[in-house]
């Protein structure tokens, strides 16, 4: 009997919940149906794990929310995982895409669920770096052909008897394993796990003059704080990185671009216009990223500061 009463109570609660949900259910969308009707005022932005991306996303978010009255949902996701969100409407915008020709082929050309939305204006390039003091002290260290000679310098407890090449987040674009193999380098990739870990190691390497060879990229504010020297790999030529297993050349300089879901491009209205028009310089991104990382500002505050100081830049992005 007691159980019976409990069950009845529970059924009642569940029913009430279901009713409550049913009344407003038509309004919700989290992309559960194959083609969800986007409520026109919510925009879903993927936030990939590096601060430059976060800076661009923060400025776009700020303008969407404060100037155009949209609601923005930000989702912390790895680069390649973000693309999976286009199909069912879980992601509307990838703000800063680094190449990814294979993903473009799959999602833009084959599945037709995403479209390109133009350059961000940022020029991005990945490379291997050492602190400048190492370049001064060890002649020729910035040439990959001499790396084996200096490999012992980079040894750590994690890399065993090889030199350590410190890598970032596991999800980042990477040719490191192939490069080491194909250029016959006596190095081992050690994964630091995040951008923050890379920055910390680089800072320690500078302060305490500890040797370090690491994966890094431009645009980045760190170049304004620490002098870094890029290690020259065999120069990039068109198509030299077509087969990921056979890469033996440096990274290309990329025109970073925005990718949006097809649905957002069709129905996004003013928000889509703004995203399409968004384009700024590496310096601008670095300034916002620096504020977020080093000046104790939240992404929103850093974006507000930039927006207030640069009206002439962003007013050109605004939809008419």
């Amino acid at each position, binding site marked *: 009997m*007691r*159980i019976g*009463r409990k069950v009845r109570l529970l059924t009642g609660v569940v029913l009430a*919940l*279901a009713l*409550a*949900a*049913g009344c*407003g*259910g038509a*309004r*919700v*969308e*989290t*992309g*559960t*149906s*194959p083609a969800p009707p986007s409520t026109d005022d919510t925009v879903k932005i993927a*936030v990939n*794990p590096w*601060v430059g991306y976060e800076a661009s996303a923060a400025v776009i978010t700020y303008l969407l929310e404060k100037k155009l009255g949209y609601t923005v*949902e930000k*989702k*912390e*996701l*790895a*680069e*390649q*995982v973000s693309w*999976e*969100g286009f*199909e*069912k409407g*879980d*992601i509307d915008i990838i703000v800063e895409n680094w190449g990814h020709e*294979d*993903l473009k082929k*799959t999602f833009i050309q*084959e599945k037709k669920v995403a479209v390109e939305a133009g350059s961000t204006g940022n020029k991005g390039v990945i490379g291997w770096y050492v602190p400048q003091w190492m370049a001064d002290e060890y002649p020729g260290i910035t040439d990959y052909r001499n790396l084996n000679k200096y490999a012992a310098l980079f040894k750590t*407890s*994690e890399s*065993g008897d090889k030199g350590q090449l410190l890598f970032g*987040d*596991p*999800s980042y674009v*990477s040719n490191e*394993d192939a490069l080491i193999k194909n250029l016959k380098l006596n190095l081992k990739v*050690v*994964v*630091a*796990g*995040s*951008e*923050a*870990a890379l920055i*910390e190691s680089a800072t320690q390497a500078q302060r305490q003059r500890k040797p370090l060879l690491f994966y890094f990229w431009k645009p980045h504010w760190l170049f304004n704080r620490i002098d870094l020297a890029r290690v020259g790999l065999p120069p990039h030529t068109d198509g030299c990185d077509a087969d*990921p*297993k056979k890469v033996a050349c440096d990274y290309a300089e990329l025109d970073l671009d925005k990718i949006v879901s097809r649905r957002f491009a069709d129905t996004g209205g003013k928000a889509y216009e703004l995203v399409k028009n968004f384009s700024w310089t590496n310096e601008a991104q670095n300034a916002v990223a620096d504020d977020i*990382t080093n000046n*104790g500002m939240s992404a929103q505050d850093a974006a507000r500061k930039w927006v207030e100081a640069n009206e002439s830049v962003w007013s050109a992005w605004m939809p008419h």
Partner: protein
Amino acid sequence: MSSRFSRSSASLCFSGAPATVRTTRPTGPRTAPSTASRAVRRARPLTAWLTGMALTVAVYLLFRGSATLPHNDDAAPFRLIGDVRDWMDANRNESPVFLFLVNYVRLLVGGLYDALHLTLLILGWAGTISLAGALGWLAGSWRGAVTTLAGFGAFGVLGVWRESADTLALVLAAVLLSLLVGLPLGVWAGRSVRLRRLLAPLLDAMQIMPTFAYLAPMVLFFQIGPASATVATMVYSIPPAIRITALAVERVSPAAVEASTALGATRWQTLRKVHLPMARATIALAVGQTFMMALSMVVIAALIAAPGLGSDIVAGLSRANVGLMLPAGMAIVVMAVVLDRMTAAAATREPAARDASSTRLGIATATTLLICGLAAARFLPAEFPENWVLHFAGPVNEVVDWAKFSWYGVTEATRNIATETVLNPVQNVLTTAPWWLVTGVVLVAAWRSGGLGPAVTAVCCLLTTALLGVWQHTMETLTTVLAGVVPALAAGLVLGVAAARSPRFSAVQRPLLDAAQTMPPFVYLLPALALFGASRFTAVFASVVYAVPPVVRLVEDGIGGVSPAAVEAARACGSTERQVLWKVRLPMARGAILLAANQGIVMTLAMVVVGGLVGGGGLGYDVVSGFSRRADFGMGFAAGVATVLVGITLDRITRGADERPSRKVPRKFPGKRRRGSHEDRT
């Protein structure tokens, strides 16, 4: 070692006593060998062991570097799995499996999440808090109400109300679905031996499978978002629901069932009126466990765009910002504690004490509470008031920075020394040893501890990892597990013994253990990462901290369960306290200690894999990278399967000779069970 002590000395004084006591333990009877043969057995294994060791070392030195299976990122199994993935990806919108099953599941699950989420949104923060308070009152009167009110209030004060509501909706959706599937299946399994046998290996695998390994297939089937995250969480949290329910139904006294049948009840009536009521308390425990599992998964599900608290933790990890993730981490722990207490309170309430009038009173109070809350919600702002929020990200980051800076020398040295003296040498040995030698050692170890059956299983599992192309990384993972297990067991043993001997120590320690065991594994990474940066040592450190609590609990329970008569007898024989501990208590708790070792190993393995996120290397990293890079999907999937196989191998080696049916208990089960049985007695 300790068991051999006991058989000789303790039984010389009061011969036979340990054997009688042992038979009463649930871990299974053992026939005590005669004193003479005991002495022989004591000498023989030692020499045999030493000879075996020497032989292994000799063989290793002879064949070092040969027959190793180095890792290849482009191994055939990886490519095969990748091809399957591509095919599925391409056929997602054509295949009937997707059109008529998977897509509908997604729709349904997403709908449930949306409904719950919307309900919480409509209720607003004040309404939700009061609803929680009302439910808390119903479950555990004023105590329950205070716990839930304080807990839910804490979400707001921590400044993560909105995220907590998202997470709560997701957890509720996942748990509802888990129970909907798990409870009937559990009841069925409790009554059918065949189904139980069928399910056991599947559930084993699901529980050993690292949480990450669920994510990549989820993305493949359901892509990302709340629906996908709910399914992942549900799949992860189903095993305890099935397992504990089955156990509860199975344990219902056969006499009662027989009586019911004899009185002419149908099967259905027996189920409803005998099985379910009698198994009620344990089934409530199953619900609690399901909540705990769901909470630990929901954080990791942030990696596939689950909304809520997990997102903050992931963001904090990638920015090494402890201040950002701390409020979210604390909110998760609070949520776990509240949900745990609520289900526990609902389970342990004495049914007899609930007469009609007090029930009515309870419902009336709860309703009043709810109505007050809803009324208050009309006057309160829709968002949790900003000036009630406690901001501590800044100070926390300052403390972390200070600790990092001033302890840098110590932490760095600790990490390097541990890595150089333990991790690297062990890893070096395991990766340069021929595969057949490692397999041989595993075969012998499993055979000695468990007999032929477990040995064959262990070896098969181990060799399958080689077939999957991840042998070398399996060895690397094994290294970190070994490095984590030894300190975890040592610490667990010391603390467990201390707690068993001093009730006061135990009383202080127990709430800490409770809290530690309700924390999802992800949270353990935070302090480890803050102190040691990203490295294998960080993963080992986190896994030690993660594995200690269950070990302590099992050891304490085991030693506390030793028959007082045996202890008295030993004292009467003139044994000192130390002798009593070493020669009576520890040996007689052998079963419990073995179980603790077994649990410790499984937990360490689970954590080491999560450690892939913070530089853990080995299989864990493969899983992480397979999830985040499409090209590595095959490798990640193979590594996920391999982790399960490693888990089974280790389980079979440490299982011991006892015939223990599926004693892969969920995290808190042993402690709870004891608590429950106390109450039964009183």
